[in-house]
């Protein structure tokens, strides 16, 4: 029987901030999304105040200022560094794991003596806390779907002290847990699906476990049938070693200020295109076409304009300069003066891997020039990786970026900036 564990960091972003600023400990704290829009991570104390995930900051600001609520802008460089540390520690505990998101990883524990697995995971949990300061919970079970539920129990039920192993529970104990868990707590069952399941008598995990798989497969999907099999302890979803390369890469942001002029739009579109091209190069793929869009705020009283345009490229490319040129060419055609723009974005479509890159027989670019473009990008990526992002960039990106997103409450790069380190006497 395979054994999976899911390690999940508790309130990850909020916990990262607290490691480097102990004053935040035991305080109601929310981390805001890009542009300080809404709450994307909450400390336990913030949850206790009744603050929901995704609550907009402008509402929270007024309602909870008296409760001492603290808000911070998201510091993704810090969270990524802390996440990498956790992943690297996981590697000391099992060679087979899948990084599922910035704060979650599945571990395969096949071949470990079953009676030692709980202790092994508890040791991992304690090591992560000691080495990084981050509290984590671990759920263990025979399938990934069950491991997710076990993690939920590890987090919500204090009696498990952060590590819950379904394989060590009796069928009676498991039934009691499943009867208490609403069906939408299951991995892959969202609120919409559960709204359809509830009327036909499936309200808890227990109900779904004993539902007729065949009927539900016909009525809903084969994915749901697979979920039922997984809840019954038969593993159908294995570890994914590396996520499959993305078919499209998007880089879009809202602006921090009102943008009306084309120069600012050009700068932002250049930046987003550079980012997208960098991502494409990282996963070694080339775009067949590029889409640029710009839009004004649909919810304001000002005149509304939104437009997008896609250009197919003569041959697949991930060259920053070629893509920026194309993106700006599109932008000039999309731009209409007299509007207050709120958002712009760049999407690279129909990505093909390096190997499957089909060169254009007619395209007037010799292989030599093509190699030069590749070399140039390699130089740019290498320099930017060594000396920090934005060291080398396309000049049309501009140097001041006044339109950049609002991050009024961002903490320093505690692990990525010499001037941002913890200070102590």
């Amino acid at each position: 029987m395979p054994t999976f564990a899911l390690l999940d960091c508790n309130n990850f972003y909020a916990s990262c901030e607290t490691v480097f600023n102990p004053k935040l400990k035991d305080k109601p704290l929310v981390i805001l999304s890009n542009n300080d829009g809404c709450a994307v991570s909450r400390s336990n104390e913030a949850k206790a105040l009744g603050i929901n995930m995704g609550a907009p900051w402008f509402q929270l600001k007024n309602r909870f200022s008296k409760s001492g609520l603290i808000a911070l802008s998201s510091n993704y460089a810090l969270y990524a560094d802390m996440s990498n540390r956790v992943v690297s520690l996981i590697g000391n505990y099992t060679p087979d794991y899948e990084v599922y998101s910035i704060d979650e990883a599945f571990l395969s524990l096949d071949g470990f003596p079953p009676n030692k697995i709980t202790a092994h995971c508890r040791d991992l949990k304690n090591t992560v806390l000691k080495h990084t300061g981050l509290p984590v919970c671990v759920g263990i079970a025979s399938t990934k779907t069950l491991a997710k539920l076990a993690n939920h129990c590890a987090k919500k039920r204090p009696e498990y002290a952060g590590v819950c192993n379904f394989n060590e529970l009796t069928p009676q104990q498991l039934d009691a847990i499943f009867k208490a868990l609403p069906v939408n707590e299951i991995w892959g069952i969202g609120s919409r699906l559960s709204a359809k399941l509830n009327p036909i008598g499936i309200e808890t995990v227990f109900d779904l476990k004993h539902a007729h798989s065949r009927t539900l497969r016909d009525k809903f999907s084969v994915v749901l049938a697979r979920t039922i099999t997984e809840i019954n302890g038969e593993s159908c979803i294995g570890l994914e070693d590396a996520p499959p390369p993305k078919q499209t890469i998007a880089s879009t942001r809202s602006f921090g200020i009102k943008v009306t002029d084309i120069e600012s739009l050009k700068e932002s579109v250049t930046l987003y295109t550079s980012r997208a091209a960098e991502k494409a190069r990282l996963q070694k793929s080339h775009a067949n076409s590029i889409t640029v869009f710009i839009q004004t705020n649909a919810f304001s009283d000002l005149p509304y304009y939104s437009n997008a345009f896609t250009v197919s490229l003569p041959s697949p490319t991930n060259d920053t300069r070629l893509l920026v040129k194309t993106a700006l060419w599109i932008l000039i055609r999309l731009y209409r003066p007299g509007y207050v723009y709120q958002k712009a974005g760049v999407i690279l479509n129909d990505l093909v891997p390096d190997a499957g890159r089909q060169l254009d027989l007619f395209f007037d670019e010799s292989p030599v020039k093509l190699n030069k473009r590749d070399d140039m990008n390699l130089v740019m990526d290498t320099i930017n990786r060594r000396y920090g992002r934005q060291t080398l960039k396309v000049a049309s990106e501009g140097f001041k970026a006044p339109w950049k997103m609002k991050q009024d409450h961002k903490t320093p790069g505690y692990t990525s900036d010499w001037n941002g380190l913890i200070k102590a006497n």
Partner: protein
Amino acid sequence: MVPASNTDDKPGPGRPEGRNAYGEATLPIRVPKSKITVVQDYLKQCALINALDAVDQSQIQGVDVPKRRVKLPLYSSKVAAGFPSPADDHIEKRLNIHDYLVDQDDATFMVTVTGESMRDAGLLPKDIAIVDRSKNAAVGNIVLAVVNGEFTLKQLGLTEQGKPILLAANPAFKPIEINDGMEFEIWGVVTGSIRKFL
């Protein structure tokens, strides 16, 4: 009646060479019917590339690039001049300061020293202390501690009653006794420090 023709012998008739979407001379050609759209699509792309090439390259400004890191090779023997060096076979890995200072990569963080309290232990303002969270603090270690929410660098000691006490390495600073009700945590152990002179 002879139809009007533009094939008269006047030199340079029609559009001047190269003044079209492709930026070069063009010629009429025969194309199989089924391939007309293919050729037209291709020509559109050529025109697009041509238009893109004409986009103005905005002026380029300089940016500061950090100084290059100097790597010091370590040789296991001296080099004899004028003779093919036998040491070539023995060149070893360049020393890396990170490897020297950092033991547990995942658990190591850096802290900027801000005050004089650890002066006599060799930690001066602006020095960077290397802090390893994975180490268990022992009496006598310099630690990064959190006292009532504030970070502090001190030497860990024990009182006669067996309570932790934080000692400064500078007579101008009093020891901090940790009493019940105080929030106290050892964040990590200081394993080394860095100072730059230039």
